[in-house]
């Protein structure tokens, strides 16, 4: 077996690929290749012949890698999935973080651990960023809807902005709903009338 582990990262998003690669370089001296295309993925990985493959669980192309778990010829090295029961805590952490790893059969888990640890940390960071982005986006959209609803109330009932918001908030409290939901209902219903 080679001294330096060769690792393939399957990642369609170039920026993310670079970030994962950087984290792995910090974790140790590895030979890293990022594959960013789904076209003939199994063939590409067979050619690269890595010790380990990392792939985002959310990537549907992960199923393509399952082909590699079947040793179909004498030249093909069997690849086992790292998620086995030898280190369940690590596996669980990987699944929670959304990363899956395939490693060559027989590779010791202490050689794989630093890589997977680094990948798990990085994927957790991606996950947090994704959640934050989604939350921010939603907050922005809700703000816009509330502003539109306020505008409609101001016009229809000839009140100022603060009063319009008070009306919205009261309606929300009476109905046991969020202000944003009441505003959304108003805006979409009003759309039917105009």
């Amino acid at each position, binding site marked *: 077996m080679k001294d330096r582990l060769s690792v393939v990262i399957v990642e369609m998003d170039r920026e993310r690929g670079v970030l994962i690669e950087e984290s792995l370089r910090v974790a140790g001296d590895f030979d890293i290749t990022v594959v960013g295309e789904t076209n003939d993925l199994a063939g590409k990985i067979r050619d690269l012949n890595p010790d380990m493959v990392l792939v985002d*669980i*959310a990537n*549907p*192309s992960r*199923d393509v*890698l399952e082909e590699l778990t079947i040793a179909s010829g004498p030249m093909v090295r069997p690849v086992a999935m790292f998620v*086995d029961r030898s280190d369940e805590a690590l*596996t669980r952490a990987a699944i929670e973080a959304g990363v*899956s790893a395939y490693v060559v059969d027989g590779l010791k888990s202490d050689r794989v651990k630093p890589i997977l640890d680094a990948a798990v940390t990085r994927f957790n960071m991606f996950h947090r960023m994704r959640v934050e982005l989604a939350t921010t986006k939603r907050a922005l959209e809700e703000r816009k809807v509330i502003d539109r609803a306020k505008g409609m109330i101001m016009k229809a009932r000839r009140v100022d902005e603060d009063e319009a918001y008070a009306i919205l908030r009261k309606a929300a409290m009476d109905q046991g709903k969020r202000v944003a939901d009441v505003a959304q209902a108003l805006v979409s219903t009003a759309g039917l009338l105009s």
Partner: protein
Amino acid sequence: MLSVGFIPLVDAAPLIVAQEMGFAAEEGLALDLLPAPSWSSLRDLLAFGRVDAAHMLAPVPVASALGLGGSGVEMCALSVLSMNGNVIGVSNGLAARMRNGGHGFGFDDAHAAGAAIITAGPEAGARLRIGVPFPFSMHAELLYYWLSALGLPAPQGVEVRTVPPPLMAEAMASGEIDAFCVGEPWGSIAVEKGVATLLLPTRAIWQGAPEKVLAVRKGWADDEPELSARLIRAVWKAQRWLFAPDSRALAGEILARPEYLAMPVEVIDRALTGNLCISPGGDMRQVPDFVTFYKNAASFPWRSQAQWIGYQLAARMGLDRAEALRKASHVFRPDLYRAALDPAGAVIPGASSKIEGSIRVETPVASGAGRLFLGPDSFFDGKSFDPERANL
């Protein structure tokens, strides 16, 4: 609350309907339905306890039992969620060559379709490239069975590639594959995109093919007999509801929702009604029982079905066939199915195993209560599979 993973496909219907139409609630269950991005991740979510049950390709738990793929966590099938429901499609280029060769795309004759695809196949020397969703799938097993029965040496003579269903149409358009075998609605979507013509429903290869199963960890089934019985009943009631013709329109609407398939209901309805549009030109074909959830004890997990799968896998992968038959026989659980549904008054087969492929016409059989008919389960080549007399 029970977390259940699924892949957004028409045949996830029994699980989705169990939750949406209140059959789960009737059993005191709330199903937390979690869509998964791929079969391998769904299998791992199940194996590592992130979900308690899953919509699963019938061969996946069998393959795991044989040590193929996955983490080695034992899984079992509590019931069959659906029978058949896949289509084989060919690229426009291949379809044109087949039409020139005189094939009429009747969509019902596996002999004619198979002969046509082998004759028209790729240029001399090249192998026919066929996309399937997963290496361990009925799609792959039925293709190998079909083509090798017609004289094409499989797996050597054909290149079966894994292509995730959402990418199937794209792979066809870019010339990466010549044909595919995929579950609905992905075949119809490839037709809608103008890149494929449908050649056969997989039903034409094996009428009795189990497609998806209700899979759980074996340890969970052992530890939670009460919970698994309630789950079996909830899903069985959903399947019975899906069988009623009146349910189809509503079933399509529910499946189309953004949290489930997130696809146009018109495309989903094709599989539910068996009224398929097979070509970009708009040719229609009617396939009775294109996908079945309930009819003729469709949901009964026959041990012999799992053994057929185990036998095929072993033959293809060079494993010991006798051992594969033995291991596979424990994966499907007619015992748990019967224990759960006997009290519900379900009509259940008295046997747990049958000679697959031996029933040519709808046939009455012995059952615990009431009258039960088994549907035809013939293989297109007329052969049958008896696990007790399999060629080892």
